[in-house]
C-alpha cells in the first residue's frame, strides 16, 4: 500500500487548516460559549499531554515490558487525582499573579530572576527531545505510507507548517494571559480526534481481527506467551521512577502547564478534570492491549511503534490508515504548538527581556509580538536540528521517556512552592543545577555523543537509567533542603512564599509605593514603557478594578498596584514587572502586617470562608462573630492603628456620620470632612476619655452626642472610639424641662389668680361704691380709673387662669368636626371689629372643603390670638393672609403678615410664658404659650418662619400643622 504524496500532504494541510479554522471561528465568537467554557472542552484540551509517545510509542513499550506502559497514564492520573492539593493551588497562584509559565511561577515564588532563567533553559533542554520525537513520528509515519520522498524534507515542511500555525494561534496578543479560547477549542478538537481514532481502531481490532471479546480470550489462551509479557513482574524501581516522572511531567511540562494554568482560569474546570482526565487516559490505555494483540496476530508487530498505522495498511483499509495517520499528526502538532508557544514566552521573559529590557516606545506591543514570533521560529529550528542530529538515531519511546523523566527535577521546586515556606532561591537554584547536571551529563550527553543505533543500545541497555534519575532527584532534594536551611531568605522572598502557600490569601508581596495618585504610577512606568503604553496599562487596570483615575485611597492604591503588577507580569513576566514597579523603592519593613493589608485580608477572608477547615475555620468563625458584634453594635465604633489611621468603622458610624467605611478606612481622623474630622481628632487628643452631650449642628439640625475612648496599646495613637447619639434623649429632656416649667407656672398662676382675685373684686366694689358717695368730678374720675384698672387686673388674672387650666382638662375637651373656613372666617370677623383690625386687609384663602376634628372654642382662641398678633405687627393698611393646604394626613395652616418680622434670638423663646415683644401693658406674654398648648392638645405642631418674605426681608408666618382626624 502506497499513499499518493499529494494526498498525504493534502490530508495534513487540510487537518491543520481545519484546526486553525476551529481556533479562528472560536475567537470570532461563532461557537456557543456554553461549548467553549464547558468542562468537557477543557478536559479534552488537556489531552495535549497524549503526544505521539502515547499514540505510537506506548505500543512498543507494551510489547516490550507489558504493563509498564501504564506508568505514563497512571502517573498523570495520580496528578489529577490530587488536583485539589496540587493543581488547584497552582492555578490560584498563577491566576492571581498572572503567571504564564513554570519559569514565571518559580521566579515569582523565589523572587529570583536566576530561578526563572534556569527553569526556562532546563525546560528548553528537556522539551527538545520531546519535540524531536514528534517530528520523527510524523516523518516516519509519512515515510511508511509513502517511501518515495525523503523524510528529512518532510520534517522541514512539517516544522514550517507547525511554526506558522503556532504563530497564528499563539502570538496574536502581546499579553500572555490574554484568553485564547481558540487554542483551547482547537486542542480539545485534536484530543477528540485522537480519542475517536484510538477507539475506532481498537474496536476494529477487537471485533474484526480478534473476533470479539470471546475470540480475544480464545486467542490469548492459545498464545499464552503474549499474555506472559503482561504477567512478568515489573521492575519495581523502574516502575516507581516512571510513575514519579510522569506524575511530575504533567504538572511541569510547558505544554501541559500552559493548558492547565495559563489558558484556563476556571477552578471548576480543573476540579472536573480531576476525574475527567484520568477517564480520558483510561480509555486511551484500554485500547492499547487489543490493538497490540491484533497486530501480533496479523504479524506486523516487528515495528511496534507504528503498529497502529501498519494495522490499517495490513488490512488494506484506507480509512483506518488515514485515521491512524491523522491521530498521530494531531498528537504531534498539538504538543509542538503549545510547547513552542509556552517555551517562547519563557525565553522572552527570562532570557531575552532581562538581557534587553523593553524600550520606551509606542511600538512596544508590536515589538513584543515580533519577539515572540521570532522565538517560536527559533524554537522550531532548534527542534529540527535536534531531530536531524540526535533524534534520528534513537527509538521514539526511549527518547520520550528520558525527556519526561527530565521534568521530574522540577518536582521539589513545585512541592516547596506549595508546602514549604522555608525554601529559598539559593536552595532551589543549586538543587536544580545539581539534579539536572547529574541527569543531563549522564543521559542526554550520552545521547548527543552517539550517532548510531548501537549507541542507543548502549545507553538504553543501562539497566540503571532509572536509578540515575532517582540519584539526580535525591541530590536535587538534599542540596535544596540543606542550602535552604543554611542560607537566609530575603524579606521579599518570605512574603512571596507565604503568598504561594496552600490556603494563603492574596497579599501584596512587593513593597508599598509611596504614591497617592494614579497618574504618579503612569509617571513611574513611563521611563521604561513609554508614556502611551504606561497610560494604557494603568487605564486598563483602573477600568478592570472599576476605579477612576485620580486621587485614590490607600486600599485602592494597593489594589491598583497589585493589579498593574499582574498585568505587567502577563506582558513581561513577574521579574521584569516587579523591577518596573519597584524602581523607586527605599527600604521599608515588609515583615509586619500593615493596616492596608488587614483590609485586604479581611476582604478576602469574607470570600474564602469555605476554603478554611479545622482550626482555621473555627478561628475564622470566631473572627466573624466578633466582627459582627462590633459591626452591629448600636453605638458608633471606630478604631485607629498605631499611625492614627482608621482601621475600623462600623455600620452605626456610617449611618450617623453619613461617611462610608470604604471612604474613611486608612484615613487619619483630621482628614475626615467637617464637622467629624475636627471633633474626633480633638477628642482623640484630649486627656479626658469621655466627652458628654456635646452639641453639634449637622445639616442645620441640632445633635447631641457623647464620645468615649479607650487606648488599644501602649501607643497613644492606637485607640477605639465610641460615639453615642444622644439627640433623642436630649430633646426629651428639653421637652420635659419645658413642660415642667409650664406646669409650675400654671400652678403659680392659679395661686396668684386666686390670691389676687378676691382683693381686686373688693377694690372694684369699693370703687363702684365711691361713685355713689360723691359728686366731686375728680374723685369720680379717680373711681372710674380704679374700676378700669381693676378690670384690667381681672383680664390678666382670667388669662392666667385660662393658661393654668389649659392641658389639664383633656377629658372635658369637646371634639367635633369643624369646617376650617367657617371657623377662621368667624375669627377674622371678631378681630375686624377691633379698631386695629378695621384698618387692615384680612384675607382668608382657606378652601371651604377642609374639615378638622377639634375643640372649636379653643381653636377659635388660637386663631384670634394669632390673627391679633399679626394685626399688631402689621403696618397700617397692611394685609394678613390665611392659607391652608391639605396633606395626606394633616392640614397645614399658615397665617402671614407684612410686619417687620421676628429676630432670630426671639424665635426660640416665642412660646415661653411671659415672653413678649409688645410694649409694657400691651401684652401678657401668655398668648402664644396658650396657642402652643392648645395646638399640642390637638396633637399638632406650630412653627414660626421669619422673615416670611425673603426678598423684602420682612413679614412673619405662623405655620400650624394639625392632624385631619
Amino acid at each position: 500500500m502506497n499513499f499518493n504524496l499529494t494526498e498525504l500532504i493534502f490530508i495534513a494541510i487540510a487537518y491543520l487548516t481545519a484546526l486553525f479554522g476551529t481556533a479562528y471561528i472560536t475567537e470570532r465568537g461563532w461557537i456557543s460559549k456554553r461549548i467553549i467554557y464547558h468542562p468537557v472542552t477543557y478536559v479534552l484540551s488537556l489531552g495535549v499531554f497524549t503526544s505521539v509517545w502515547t499514540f505510537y510509542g506506548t505500543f512498543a513499550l507494551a510489547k516490550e515490558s507489558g504493563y509498564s506502559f501504564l506508568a505514563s497514564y497512571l502517573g498523570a492520573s495520580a496528578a489529577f487525582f490530587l488536583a485539589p492539593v496540587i493543581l488547584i493551588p497552582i492555578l490560584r497562584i498563577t491566576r492571581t499573579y498572572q503567571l504564564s509559565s513554570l519559569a514565571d511561577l518559580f521566579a515569582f515564588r523565589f523572587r529570583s530572576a536566576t530561578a526563572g532563567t534556569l527553569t526556562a533553559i532546563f525546560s528548553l533542554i528537556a522539551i527538545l527531545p520531546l519535540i524531536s520525537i514528534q517530528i520523527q513520528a510524523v516523518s516516519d509515519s509519512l515515510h511508511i505510507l509513502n517511501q518515495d520522498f525523503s523524510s528529512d524534507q518532510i520534517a522541514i515542511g512539517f516544522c514550517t507548517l507547525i511554526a506558522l500555525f503556532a504563530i497564528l494561534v499563539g502570538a496574536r496578543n502581546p499579553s500572555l494571559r490574554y484568553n485564547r479560547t481558540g487554542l483551547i477549542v482547537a486542542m480539545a478538537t485534536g484530543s477528540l480526534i485522537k480519542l475517536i481514532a484510538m477507539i475506532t481502531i481498537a474496536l476494529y481490532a477487537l471485533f474484526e481481527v480478534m473476533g470479539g471479546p470471546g475470540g480475544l480470550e480464545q486467542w490469548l489462551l492459545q498464545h499464552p506467551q503474549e499474555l506472559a509479557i503482561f504477567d512478568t513482574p515489573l521492575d519495581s524501581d523502574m516502575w516507581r521512577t516512571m510513575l514519579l516522572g510522569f506524575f511530575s511531567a504533567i504538572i511541569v511540562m510547558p505544554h501541559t502547564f500552559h493548558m492547565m494554568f495559563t489558558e484556563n482560569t476556571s477552578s471548576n474546570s480543573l476540579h472536573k478534570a480531576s476525574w475527567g482526565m484520568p477517564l480520558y487516559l483510561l480509555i486511551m490505555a484500554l485500547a492499547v492491549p487489543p490493538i497490540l494483540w491484533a497486530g501480533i496476530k496479523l504479524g506486523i508487530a516487528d515495528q511496534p511503534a507504528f503498529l497502529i498505522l501498519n494495522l490499517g495498511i495490513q488490512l488494506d483499509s484506507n480509512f483506518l490508515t488515514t485515521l491512524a495517520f491523522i491521530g498521530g499528526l494531531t498528537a504531534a502538532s498539538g504538543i509542538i504548538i503549545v510547547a513552542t508557544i509556552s517555551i517562547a514566552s519563557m525565553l522572552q521573559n527570562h532570557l531575552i527581556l532581562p538581557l534587553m529590557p523593553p524600550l520606551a516606545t509606542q511600538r512596544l506591543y508590536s515589538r513584543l509580538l515580533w519577539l515572540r514570533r521570532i522565538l517560536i521560529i527559533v524554537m522550531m529550528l532548534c527542534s529540527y536540528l535536534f531531530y536531524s542530529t540526535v533524534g534520528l538515531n534513537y527509538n521514539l519511546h526511549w527518547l520520550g521517556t528520558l525527556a519526561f523523566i527530565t521534568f521530574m527535577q522540577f518536582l521539589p521546586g513545585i512541592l516547596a512552592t506549595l508546602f514549604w515556606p522555608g525554601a529559598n532561591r539559593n536552595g532551589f537554584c543549586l538543587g536544580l543545577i545539581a539534579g539536572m547536571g547529574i541527569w543531563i551529563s549522564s543521559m542526554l550527553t550520552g545521547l548527543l555523543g552517539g550517532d548510531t543505533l548501537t549507541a542507543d543500545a548502549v545507553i538504553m541497555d543501562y539497566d540503571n537509567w532509572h536509578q540515575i534519575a532517582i540519584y539526580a532527584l535525591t541530590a536535587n532534594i538534599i542540596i535544596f533542603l540543606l542550602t535552604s536551611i543554611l542560607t537566609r531568605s530575603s524579606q521579599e522572598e518570605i512574603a512571596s512564599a507565604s503568598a504561594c502557600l496552600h490556603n494563603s490569601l492574596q497579599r501584596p508581596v512587593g513593597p508599598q509605593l509611596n504614591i497617592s495618585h494614579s497618574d504618579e504610577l503612569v509617571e513611574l512606568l513611563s521611563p521604561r514603557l513609554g508614556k502611551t503604553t504606561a497610560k494604557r496599562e494603568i487605564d486598563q487596570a483602573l477600568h478592570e478594578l472599576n476605579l477612576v483615575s485620580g486621587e485614590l485611597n490607600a486600599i485602592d492604591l494597593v489594589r491598583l498596584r497589585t493589579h498593574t503588577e499582574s498585568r505587567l507580569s502577563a506582558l513581561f513576566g513577574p521579574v521584569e514587572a516587579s523591577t518596573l514597579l519597584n524602581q523607586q523603592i527605599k527600604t521599608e519593613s515588609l515583615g509586619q502586617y500593615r493596616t492596608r493589608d488587614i483590609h485586604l485580608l479581611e476582604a478576602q477572608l469574607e470570600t474564602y470562608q469555605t476554603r478554611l477547615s479545622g482550626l482555621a475555620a473555627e478561628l475564622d468563625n470566631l473572627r466573624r462573630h466578633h466582627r459582627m458584634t462590633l459591626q452591629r453594635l448600636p453605638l458608633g465604633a471606630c478604631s485607629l492603628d498605631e499611625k492614627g489611621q482608621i482601621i475600623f468603622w462600623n455600620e452605626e458610624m456610617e449611618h450617623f456620620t453619613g461617611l462610608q467605611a470604604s471612604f474613611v478606612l486608612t484615613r487619619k481622623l483630621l482628614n475626615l470632612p467637617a464637622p467629624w474630622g475636627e471633633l474626633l481628632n480633638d477628642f482623640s487628643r484630649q486627656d479626658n476619655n469621655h466627652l458628654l452631650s456635646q452639641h453639634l449642628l449637622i445639616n442645620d439640625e441640632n445633635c447631641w452626642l457623647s464620645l468615649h475612648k479607650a487606648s488599644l496599646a501602649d501607643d497613644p495613637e492606637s485607640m477605639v472610639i465610641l460615639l453615642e447619639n444622644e439627640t433623642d434623649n436630649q430633646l426629651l429632656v428639653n421637652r420635659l424641662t419645658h413642660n415642667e416649667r409650664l406646669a409650675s407656672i400654671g400652678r403659680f398662676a392659679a395661686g396668684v389668680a386666686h390670691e389676687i382675685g378676691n382683693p381686686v373684686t373688693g377694690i372694684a366694689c369699693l370703687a363702684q361704691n365711691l361713685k355713689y358717695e360723691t359728686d366731686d368730678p375728680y374723685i369720680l374720675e379717680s373711681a372710674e380709673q380704679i374700676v378700669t384698672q381693676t378690670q384690667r387686673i381681672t383680664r390678666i388674672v382670667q388669662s392666667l387662669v385660662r393658661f393654668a387650666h389649659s392641658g389639664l382638662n383633656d377629658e372635658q375637651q369637646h371634639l367635633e368636626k369643624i369646617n376650617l373656613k367657617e371657623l377662621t372666617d368667624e375669627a377674622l370677623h371678631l378681630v375686624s371689629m377691633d379698631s386695629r383690625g378695621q384698618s387692615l386687609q384680612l384675607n382668608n384663602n382657606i378652601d371651604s372643603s377642609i374639615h378638622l376634628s377639634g375643640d372649636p372654642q379653643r381653636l377659635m382662641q388660637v386663631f384670634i390670638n394669632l390673627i391679633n398678633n399679626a394685626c399688631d405687627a402689621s403696618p397700617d393698611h397692611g394685609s394678613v393672609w390665611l392659607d391652608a393646604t391639605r396633606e395626606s394626613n394633616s392640614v397645614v395652616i399658615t397665617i402671614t403678615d407684612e410686619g417687620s418680622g421676628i429676630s432670630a434670638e426671639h424665635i426660640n423663646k416665642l412660646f415661653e410664658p411671659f415672653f413678649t415683644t409688645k410694649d409694657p401693658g400691651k401684652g401678657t406674654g401668655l398668648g402664644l404659650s396658650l396657642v402652643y398648648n392648645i395646638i399640642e392638645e390637638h396633637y399638632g405642631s406650630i412653627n414660626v418662619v421669619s422673615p416670611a418674605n425673603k426678598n423684602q426681608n420682612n413679614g412673619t408666618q405662623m405655620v400650624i400643622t394639625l392632624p385631619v382626624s
Partner: protein
Amino acid sequence: MHFYRVLIVLVIGGYLLSPILDQWWPNSSTPWYRPFIIWAALILIIAILERRRRSDEF
C-alpha cells in the same frame, strides 16, 4: 494544613507500596483488564467526591 499533611503521607505511602500492586496484577488467574477496572473504580470515587464539593469552594 493538617488534612493535607495526612494526605501527603498517604500518597507517599501508596507510591512506595505500588510495586506490591504490580506484583498482584500479573497474577495469571486474574483477567488482563483487571488493572483497568481498579482504575475505573478510582475514577468513580474521585468523581463522586468532586460532585460533593461545595460549589463556592475555590
